[in-house]
């Protein structure tokens, strides 16, 4: 394939879908990392993967079931689960078990399992694009309200309880936002690539940036750069997009070795 083919809608829409994910994933990822809940990205992505398999097994709309599975997992964590990475580790293991058992026992399970591992960005279309634009508008619209509350709760953990709000709304809003973003990512670039963008881009930005919004901006810049390079490489050399994204981000992560902090 040549780069001229990229302008064809068949490739252009998937490319734009990936670009939107490269912006939205580090945005939630920075806050997830600040909360030391970075395993959330893998747990929720795996819950979405399990949802894909449940959808295939029941012959139900796959994207809807994947989104529902991730949101239910996030809400269950919010209401019942232990705080922090423990609940995401449990979610990850449960999602992995369900996904693989259903894959082994459904007609197209193996193909779907393969797609969730390698990413199926080229097969995402207009509905994915619409969903990503909607999530993007919600994320950026909520950011001025959400970010100060997430930071306040992180650095002054007793603030909301001391002021009569032991379970503030922003926690659930954020958990659901992370779940929806991860579900859309897992069904486009694959489970592990979704995790990599959420985890690695902020991991790099946290090392270099000075100031919270600069951290978010740097995370997005790293993610966008990694995505564009990965897409070009995968497109040119006909490689699966997921592993290439992870590989490029890992290479960029080497920059942390040169940080002054």
């Amino acid at each position, binding site marked *: 394939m040549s780069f001229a083919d990229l302008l064809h809608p068949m490739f252009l829409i998937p490319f734009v879908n990936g670009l939107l994910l490269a912006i939205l994933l580090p945005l939630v990822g920075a806050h997830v990392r*600040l909360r*030391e809940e970075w395993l959330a990205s893998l747990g929720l992505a795996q819950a979405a993967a399990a949802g894909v398999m449940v959808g295939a097994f029941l012959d139900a709309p796959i994207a809807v079931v994947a989104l529902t599975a991730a949101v239910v997992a996030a809400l269950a964590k919010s209401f019942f689960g232990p705080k922090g990475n423990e609940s995401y580790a449990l979610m990850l293991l449960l999602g992995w078990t369900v996904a693989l058992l259903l894959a082994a026992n459904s007609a197209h399970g193996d193909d779907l399992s393969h797609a969730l591992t390698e990413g199926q960005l080229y097969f995402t279309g207009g509905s994915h694009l619409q969903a990503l634009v909607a999530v993007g508008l919600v994320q950026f619209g909520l950011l001025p309200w959400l970010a*100060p509350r997430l*930071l*306040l709760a*992180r*650095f*002054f*953990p*007793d*603030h909301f*309880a*001391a*002021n009569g709000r*032991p379970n503030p709304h922003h926690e659930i809003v954020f958990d659901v936002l992370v779940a929806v973003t991860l579900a859309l990512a897992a069904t486009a670039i694959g489970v592990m690539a979704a995790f990599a963008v959420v985890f690695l881009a902020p991991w790099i*930005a*946290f*090392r270099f*940036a*000075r*100031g*919270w919004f*600069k*951290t978010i901006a740097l995370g997005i810049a790293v993610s966008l750069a990694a995505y564009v390079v990965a897409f070009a490489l995968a497109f040119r050399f006909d490689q699966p997009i997921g592993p290439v994204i992870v590989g490029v981000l890992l290479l960029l992560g080497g920059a942390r070795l040169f940080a002054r*902090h």
Partner: protein
Amino acid sequence: MNGHLLLEVENLVAGYRDPVVGPVSFRLNRGEILGLAGPNGSGKSTVLRAIIGRARIFSGTVRRGHDPIATAVQAQRPVRLAEMPITGREYLRLTGAARRAPPPQLGGLLDLRLDELSGGQFQLLHVWACLESPAGLVLLDEPDNNMDPGARATLIEVLHQSRTAGRGVLVVSHEHDLVESVCSRIVEVAA
């Protein structure tokens, strides 16, 4: 309750799985800095946590004043992450602590990342963030943790300056000289 009363703790027995402190009684009025003193392990911090609903109340009562009032809580061990790309200025903005200039010891640190501050500098910033917030009730738990003598002297000066007519401050500390130098009254919590 009168209009000056911010907090009334009466015969409070508090703890977690089992009671660890009490009975304790005290009142905190507007314009006061009240000290809650006692040795390590006596349950002073548990009283503070019961006030904010983070510890179990076995008996007794915790009552707030009639007017709803914002509360700021300085944790005994402030959250410190290995990497914190937040600046001191952003940290103060979180609690709305931007009403007046910070003490000189903090002024030069506001543009640094939090992970570039020493333990004592971070502690002083944390206390300042609570004291300078618009909260009417400020709860400080061992505010001089990690501080060298210079930072401690600044803390004492800042606490003196924080005494305003509309607000009450509760200082929990095992350091008697600290509570004696800044508090209008002291309540002893027995071990």
